[in-house]
């Protein structure tokens, strides 16, 4: 058995190779550059935030000590951070299988997974704020020892949070009901804190300050960190055979529903029910849909702050996004989702046209579902309903075909069973560049018509264009099918070679 110390660098090496050699890293330089620019921008912002945090605290809480006030706010940060990690942080992706049969201790692999999850941006971004804040506020305001102790305590809590989120993510994959409990506890905590004049967060701030002033008490966050690390380790240890067994014992009933769909809609029905099964049974498409469902609540933020009077154009854009979010999210990787069995789809007994008719119907269904879900927003203002109806028509009549047309540029294989929010596998620059006109174009039409005639006519025009698209959907499907056939070999080649 090779000791952990010797094994560790090798595993790091393999992980590095896995990342560098993955197709998404190599082929999308443009995306990497865009993400890089975004990262630098974020860094500068965070450093500035750290430097001016003391001033901000002074202006928000004029009678409190800025460090204590900030310590109190950190509680909210930790909760938000936890939820964010729970939703966004990818599970460690080292595929353990190839190592398990080798003369390597299982325990070493578990520790490697855990250490690796510590190297997350979520753990290093806060430092960019915290270090300037410590240098500028805590050390001058108190003493160097207090400053350093404070920083260490906060860092320990950040890492404790890291492993707590790790544990709950893993638990979530076994028991999805955990999510509801977490959501309920958080909501309750926020509600209680706000209604009782911030008793919990102020208490947390004082507790953190008490630790900072007596460095011995830094053992408390240290113990919390060790506990959460052990909890994650224990879960991995207990689960070590479970994943395999779970795969073996999962069973699917052939449902009457799917036969029903294919009886009504024929071949395209069979294809639709196949695609729905694909979405429900694989992590990544499912995550995409859950995320878009959550996005629909975005309307609450928009409609409470901006009344419809503030401009139809903006509201139309929101409407297009809200009523099309499922299609837009899922549609980004249309065709790529089916890359692992695309050879089958290209040889089975149906035409390319049938294939796209099924996609059209499925997306029509998606848009209708999101339209119905966002209907209650009409309670803010009845005009929202009219705007969203026009947006729904446009999404169904035009944007479905735009997305399917662009789908022919999806030539990257996607592993649909790997689920995580920050997974850019298969996403190409095309999606970033060309999804803007899909939403911008109808807004442009609206503006043009509203300048020439009036705003109401602008909305009607957008709706009518959508309706025209629906009436001529057969012709539009033919265009999409022709585009696909022209690129079929390129797509097949791409899917076969990662």
């Amino acid at each position, binding site marked *: 058995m090779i000791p952990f110390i010797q094994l560790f660098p090798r595993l790091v090496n393999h992980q590095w190779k896995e990342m560098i050699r993955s197709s998404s890293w190599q082929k999308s330089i443009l995306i990497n550059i865009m993400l890089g620019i975004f990262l630098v921008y974020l860094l500068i912002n965070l450093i500035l935030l750290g430097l001016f945090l003391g001033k901000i605290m002074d202006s928000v809480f004029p009678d409190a000590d800025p460090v204590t006030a900030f310590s109190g706010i950190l509680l909210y940060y930790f909760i938000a951070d936890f939820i964010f990690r729970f939703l966004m942080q990818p599970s460690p992706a080292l595929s353990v299988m190839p190592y398990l049969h080798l003369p390597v201790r299982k325990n070493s692999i578990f520790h490697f997974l855990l250490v690796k999850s510590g190297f997350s941006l979520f753990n290093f971004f806060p430092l960019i704020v915290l270090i300037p804040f410590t240098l500028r506020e805590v050390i001058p305001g108190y003493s160097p020892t207090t400053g350093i102790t404070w920083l260490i305590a906060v860092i320990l809590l950040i890492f404790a949070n890291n492993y707590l989120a790790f544990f709950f993510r893993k638990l979530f994959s076994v028991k999805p009901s955990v999510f509801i409990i977490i959501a309920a506890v958080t909501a309750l905590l926020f509600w209680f804190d706000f209604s009782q004049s911030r008793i919990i967060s102020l208490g947390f701030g004082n507790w953190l300050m008490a630790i900072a002033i007596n460095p011995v008490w830094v053992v408390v966050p240290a113990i919390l960190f060790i506990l959460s690390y052990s909890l994650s380790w224990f879960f991995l240890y207990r689960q070590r055979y479970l994943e395999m067994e779970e795969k073996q014992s999962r069973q699917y009933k052939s449902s009457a529903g799917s036969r029903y769909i*294919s009886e009504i809609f024929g071949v395209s029905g069979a294809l639709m029910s196949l695609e729905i*099964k694909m979405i429900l049974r694989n992590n990544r498409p499912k995550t995409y849909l859950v995320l878009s469902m959550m996005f629909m609540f975005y309307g609450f933020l928009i409609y409470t702050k901006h009344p419809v009077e503030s401009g139809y154009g903006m509201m139309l854009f929101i409407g297009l996004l809200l009523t099309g979010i499922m299609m837009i999210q899922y549609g980004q990787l249309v065709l790529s989702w089916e890359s692992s*069995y*695309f050879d*089958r789809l290209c040889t*089975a*007994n*149906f035409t390319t046209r049938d294939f796209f008719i099924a996609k059209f119907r499925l997306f029509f269904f998606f848009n209708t579902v999101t339209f119905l879900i966002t209907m209650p927003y009409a309670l803010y203002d009845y005009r929202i309903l009219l705007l969203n109806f026009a947006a729904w028509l446009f999404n169904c009549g035009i944007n479905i075909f735009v997305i399917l047309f662009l789908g022919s540029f999806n030539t990257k294989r996607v592993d649909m069973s790997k689920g995580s929010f920050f997974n850019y596998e298969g996403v190409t620059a095309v999606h970033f560049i060309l999804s803007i006109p899909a939403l911008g174009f109808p807004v442009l039409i609206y503006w043009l018509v509203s300048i020439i005639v009036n705003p109401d006519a602008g909305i009607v025009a957008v709706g009518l264009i959508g309706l025209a698209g629906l009436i001529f959907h057969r012709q539009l499907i033919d265009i999409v099918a022709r585009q696909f056939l022209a690129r079929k070999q390129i797509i097949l080649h791409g899917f*076969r070679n990662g």
Partner: protein
Amino acid sequence: MIKVKGLKKQYAGTTALHIPEMEIVAGESFGLIGNNGAGKTTFFRLILDLLAATEGEVISKNVQVSQSEEWKKYTGSYLDEGFLIEYLSPAEYFNFIGSLHGMNLEDLTGFYHQLDGFASEELYQNRKPIRALSKGNKSKVGIIAALMGNPEIVVLDEPFAHLDPSSQISLKRLLKRVNTEKNVTLLVSSHDLTHVTEVCNRIVLLESGLIIRDFATTHDTMRELEAYFTH
């Protein structure tokens, strides 16, 4: 049934397959053999329009496969796991392929009975996702799906690999029967010389993308092939 004209497939300058002229007539059982990298799978992919030929064309029933989708109606195929939809159970997969051929549940049961012993009831009723099946069962699922909907041409790439001995025997029987009774044109590749010579009445030997031999099976075939592969 299938005609090949000046077919050439090149990858980055190296020729993977070059077949100037060939014809496979209806009802023929065509066995393709050759070592790894000889171009067997490439040839089958070109027939199924899963690969673009660098030059030349494959013609199925007088129509180029790359120009029309007609061939999909009468061609059943199974090349590799990329033909399986892994999150479906076998039953769901058969239902799906069956519904594309307009088969209802009764038709499916009738079809299963014709397979006489190649797969057991257990496989048709299996509710595990295909990705959890053993390799042998995976390839059984693929082969069965390729035979659905009364195809006139069946293309199978190494169907005998991974199968257990009794399934190998019953598959041979099944393929021979489908070929003689229903006049289905069979295209089968294999590394197992005994199996191909038993099933096929025409053997084509590929080496580095070129046809080395092309002959009808006789009782001497086995010896001839063994001699070829021994040197």
